[in-house]
């Protein structure tokens, strides 16, 4: 598979929810291709359908109509268990609320996807791999910390390490910076950009235009349809932004 082959290919995806007598059309015919190595920010106001899109992309839900190819495989008709396997092997999730298991060390949180996998890794191999993933997100020295001993940014890093544990084709982030301050948000974006530069495809839902500018491509939805799909013209570089933030803080300290 060449890098130009799409990781994600959506063909006329529709999602309709039936609530009593009312039918709600959350997604109304979305066709979208995301290539390997892309970094897409999925934007839109609340209720514009991007949450439903996220659930479908993440194989947590099935489209009512249309076809969804993930890594060349049609996953739109799979059952509950088959979808669970796809989630386990091909998708890494990062959530707004981190969603780590409480009272569980960082390394055990990262091991979680491997416990449910089909691979034949031994317990110590799983542990090594989890430690490497934590090292990659810069938490190599905090592998035995529990979530409540970690800051929000660190918890999100643990969640990212967990998402990477099974070496997925796609990293799916649902408002990953929603609960974080500006500095930490930029740091997390820096991590995404770094992972993306190593070839991991990233799709991220966000409401914040500033955050979306760290992506390569912005897809904007409204009322269940894509209304804009464009390459980010002046893409922000997280390392550069962090430098500027630091300078600004130093200035603030010097000039009260």
């Amino acid at each position: 598979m060449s890098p130009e082959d799409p990781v994600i290919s959506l063909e006329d995806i529709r999602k309709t929810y039936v609530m009593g007598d009312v039918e709600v059309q959350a997604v109304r015919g979305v066709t979208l291709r995301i290539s390997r190595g892309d970094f897409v920010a999925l934007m839109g106001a609340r209720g514009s359908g991007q949450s439903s899109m996220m659930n479908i992309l993440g194989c947590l839900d099935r489209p009512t109509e249309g076809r969804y190819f993930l890594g060349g495989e049609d996953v739109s008709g799979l059952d509950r268990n088959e979808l669970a396997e796809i989630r386990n092997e091909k998708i890494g999730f990062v959530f707004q609320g981190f969603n780590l298991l409480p009272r569980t060390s960082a390394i055990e949180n990262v091991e979680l996807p491997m416990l449910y996998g089909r691979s034949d890794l031994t317990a110590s191999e799983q542990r090594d791999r989890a430690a490497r993933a934590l090292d990659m997100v810069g938490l190599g020295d905090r592998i035995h910390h529990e979530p409540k001993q970690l800051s929000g940014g660190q918890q999100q890093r643990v969640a990212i390490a967990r998402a990477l544990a099974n070496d997925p084709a796609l990293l799916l982030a649902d408002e990953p910076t929603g609960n974080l301050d500006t500095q930490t948000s930029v740091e997390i974006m820096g991590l995404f950009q770094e992972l993306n530069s190593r070839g991991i495809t990233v799709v991220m839902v966000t409401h914040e235009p500033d955050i979306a500018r760290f992506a390569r491509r912005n897809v904007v939805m409204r009322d269940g349809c894509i209304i804009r799909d464009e390459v980010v013209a002046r893409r922000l570089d997280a390392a550069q932004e962090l430098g500027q933030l630091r300078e600004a803080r130093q200035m603030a300290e010097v000039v009260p």
Partner: protein
Amino acid sequence: MKPLATVRIAGRALRRNKLRSLLTMLGIVIGVAAVITTVSIGAGARAQVQAQIDSLGRNVILIFSGSVSRGGARGGMGSAATLTVEDAVAIGREVPGVAAVSPDQRVPVQVIFGNQNWYTMAMGEGGNYLQIRQWPLSRGDMFGDQHVRASAKVAVIGQTVTEQLFGEGDPVGQTIRVGNVPFLVIGELAAKGNSVRGEDQDDIVLIPYTSLMRRIQGTTNLRGIIAQAEDTGQLSATQEQITSLMRQRHRISGTKEDDFTVRTQEEIAQTAGETSRIMTVLLGAIASVSLVVGGIGIMNIMLVSVTERTREIGIRMAVGAKGHAILLQFLVEAITLSIIGGVLGIALGVASSKLVAIRMGWPTLTSFSSAVIAFLFSAAVGVFFGFYPARKASLMDPIEALRYE
């Protein structure tokens, strides 16, 4: 997904909630301990009853002279004194399954030695009585047939009588007065303890039945006869043969009531065993209720736990846990809790049975099988009461579960 992984997942989940795990286990611990303790007490009581029945002798058949009614008022067993020594002899001679037979006569008497006296039961028996009762001597000898034929004034006394008359001294060779007749003590019986009815079996003076009937009582009729069947399998057949022989000898025909009663050791054992068996079942039933309550406790806490851990379930599903993996995890958690609880309960139950035995003096008997049954039962409780919450967890929708606050 490997089974070992499920155990690891469940183990981690249980360790995360140590207090809750302990509290959940407590119900099972108490339930199993209660079952083990009550069953031990019941089994101990049964063993004691069995020992008492065995103390009767081996393959013993008892023949009592029957009750007669005079003017509508019926006397008790033995009131009619219908049996004779000749009956006893006839049973020994004519019933093929009988190994030994002895007349059995009793009368309460005062015994005197020196300045000590004691009121006890004089028992007139044959020379083979101790063989029938499987009763060893602690000192001296038993009287023999020659003593019986001669109505000899010899006695073998029980431990209680020794204590009362001689204290720590050796009674053999001493002369005691039974009623007003001097008897030479030639032997002492080994201690036998209480009978099924709670009587002190050591509080007796054993003398030849001829001596008792002629020298003390002045009677020719017997209160009872004790016989020993050759073999346990033949016990009831022998009982029937004795009955028909006695009816024939006493000229009882057709549908007329017997003037005697024949009972075997088995029948006595059944009556006595029944009481303790009912007690064991009753106690066990009460204890089982606590085990079931413990199981419901597990279900209750697992249900709360499933609701409380909705988000956790959502996270697990998002990273690829299938429904059956979640089901298995919660089931393994429930079973682990109930098994650990079961093991602790067995330990506590064994300890408390020992405590009951020591502090209250009750005989207890903890059997390996009761521990195994309690253990298996507690595991079954885990499966049974863990399944519903586990299934509920496994059927959750991952999107809903992730959104749960």
